[in-house]
């Protein structure tokens, strides 16, 4: 308890020093309220049901500072991280928008893409209606902390009926941190009726050090809008990454959330869609791949608030070394959300004796005419399949990579064809090659075990 209080004091100091003069009053108020809430709750502990499997005491014990002036980077520093296909690209360095490295170009009519900070300082009311409207700061301390410290992020608005052909990619880069540093990226993505777009939110490290990325994204999908959102975590293994994606579905909106957790030390991936209009459709698709001592926690909170909506959750985990994965899939079906069709599947491959997965379905159903299913499996690389591939001449590392890739491809197949999927495929491919290389020697003793139903 004492650490939690000490920590709140530390955040209070940072909050007091936060420069706010150029901001509109509504934003100042939003910050104050959120910070007040954070002071009441402090950071969660493992006694909190939502955080049972993830201990954030390492974050609570660290005194993070807000970033000071970011180091001077050159285009060459970032060239390896640029999106490989044509895209609208916003790059943030240590939480601050870096216009000089970003590619916004000439946007099609009806599309606004800019830094949120710029929106809030220049056109103070553009984000006012929506910012903070959906994110639950009462329930989630990290969301409150993010709101209190909103620094910068993307503001995207796509008008009615507009189709954005290229992906909108938001790249959050953290540089070498001499002292512990925190950033609180905040994105507001608003898609009006019948619009269509793909957004990639990606986190990478240029240097090591103790860095906390505590991001929050509010995504509003208007009636009949079709939106794909990708969350890609590729930071170094000493990074903390807490992210929250809050999706607001209007009538018949179709939103796909794809998460790829390939990096980071302690990662918490919150996905919280609210199906607020009839006929909404939501796909929550993810792959998490951990090794070493990585901790990758996926917390899903799907709220069915209207009738005739469907949600599909599919998460696949691959864990090696001492990695710890979590899949917590909460589905809440409100009283009036009849004809809800909700499905949840979590499949896991454990590649070592010390890797661990906690998978937990949590269904709360208050309507009486619904279909909700859930299932989870835990298994290992099928030694029979491995021998089969090797007996045809394929070497062990390639055979393992093929089998891991096959497992991961279930996740890829759910992504719509296009540059975002191709990019994801490339990243997964490169990452699994590395993992396959590691596990060849370790797994000689692993016994073959078939899939085991646990839920």
């Amino acid at each position, binding site marked *: 308890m004492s650490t939690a209080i000490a920590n709140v004091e530390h955040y209070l100091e940072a909050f007091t020093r936060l420069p706010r003069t150029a901001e509109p009053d509504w934003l100042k108020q939003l910050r104050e309220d959120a910070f007040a809430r954070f002071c009441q709750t402090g950071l969660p502990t493992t006694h909190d049901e939502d955080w049972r499997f993830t201990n954030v005491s390492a974050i609570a014990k660290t005194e993070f500072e807000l970033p000071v002036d970011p180091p001077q980077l050159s285009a060459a520093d970032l060239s390896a991280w640029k999106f490989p296909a044509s895209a609208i690209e916003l790059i943030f360095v240590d939480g601050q928008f870096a216009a000089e490295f970003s590619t916004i170009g000439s946007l099609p009519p009806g599309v606004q893409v800019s830094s949120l900070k710029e929106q809030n300082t220049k056109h103070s009311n553009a984000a006012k209606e929506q910012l903070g409207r959906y994110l639950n700061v009462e329930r989630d301390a990290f969301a409150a902390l993010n709101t209190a410290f909103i620094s910068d992020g993307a503001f995207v608005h796509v008008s009615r009926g507009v189709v954005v052909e290229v992906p909108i990619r938001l790249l959050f880069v953290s540089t070498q941190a001499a002292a512990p540093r925190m950033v609180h990226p905040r994105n507001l993505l608003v898609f009006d009726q019948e619009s269509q777009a793909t957004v990639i939110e990606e986190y990478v490290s240029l240097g090591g050090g103790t860095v906390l990325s505590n991001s929050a994204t509010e995504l509003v999908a208007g009636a009949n809008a079709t939106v794909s959102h990708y969350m890609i975590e590729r930071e170094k293994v000493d990074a903390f990454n807490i992210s929250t994606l809050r999706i607001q579905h209007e009538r018949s909106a179709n939103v796909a959330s794809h998460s790829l957790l390939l990096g980071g030390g302690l990662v918490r991936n919150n996905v919280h869609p609210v199906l607020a209009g009839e006929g909404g459709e939501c796909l929550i698709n993810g792959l998490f791949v951990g090794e070493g001592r990585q901790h990758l926690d996926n917390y899903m909170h799907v709220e069915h608030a209207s009738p005739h909506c469907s949600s599909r959750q599919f998460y696949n985990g691959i864990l090696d070394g001492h990695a710890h994965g979590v899949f917590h899939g909460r589905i809440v079906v409100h009283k009036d959300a009849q004809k809800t069709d909700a499905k949840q599947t979590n499949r896991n491959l454990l590649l070592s004796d010390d890797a661990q997965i906690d998978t937990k379905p949590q269904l709360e159903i208050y309507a009486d005419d619904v279909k909700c299913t859930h299932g989870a499996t835990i298994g290992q690389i*099928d030694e*029979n*399949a491995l*021998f*089969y*591939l*090797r*007996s*045809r*001449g*394929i*070497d*062990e590392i*390639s*055979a393992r990579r*093929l*089998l891991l*890739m*096959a*497992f991961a*491809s*279930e996740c890829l197949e759910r992504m719509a064809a296009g540059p975002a999927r191709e990019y994801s495929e490339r990243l997964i491919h490169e990452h699994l090659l590395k993992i396959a290389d590691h596990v060849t020697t370790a797994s*000689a003793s692993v016994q073959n075990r078939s899939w085991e139903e646990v839920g």
Partner: protein
Amino acid sequence: MSLLEIKNLHASVDGHEILKGINLTINPGEVHSIMGPNGSGKSTLAQVLARRQAYHVTAGSINFLGKDLLEMKPEEAACEGVFLAFQYPVEVPGIGNTYFMRSALNAIRKHQGLDEMDAMDFLPMFREKLKLLDMDEKLMNRSVNEGFSGGEKKRNEILQMAVLQPRLAILDETDSGLDIDALRIVANGVNALRSTERGMLVVTHYQRLLNYIVPDFVHVLVDGRIVRSGGPELALELEEKGYSWTEGARQPEPASA
């Protein structure tokens, strides 16, 4: 030089000795059949030859084309020209048949110092082999063996053999569970691959297969040892008298069919 020379092979799995001194020589162009009752060690021999690590060789040697086969990993044995048609082909979800076949062929070609085959060169050759086994090309768009019937799986094994063109083909109960039509197709596929360069080891429980794939030599394996060897007529004799006949020769027991 002989293709395969097995001397005094002993192998065990989980501490149980299964093979208790096998001696067998196969020359290029020869087809040998190994018959035997359940649990006699037929499949163990096949798996040891394919270098499955779960089987521990405790004594003896296997020479394959002048090299020590026991020193090889499964993929090395495959690249040197050993092919095992599995008794129970494995389903591999998420890996397409065509991609798998091309990867395997290219791994072997690379080992032989040949250029990799691209899709343009591979497909026409592949289609021809599909015809040989009377297989629908649509099956090849699916994952390896996934959702295949028993007969389709067995045909897929022979298809792989036709693509990879091994020096030594080991068929482990390829006939088990096949109806007569599927058996004919499989046997035709195998016979088409008989050549003066290639040796075959046909492991079977039933004599029926040997009506279609006529071996040069038949060996009877009982309790981890080859107890009789002879020509194709031995298979017929075995069919007539049952395995108890051979067992009886070693260890008198009440005869039963």
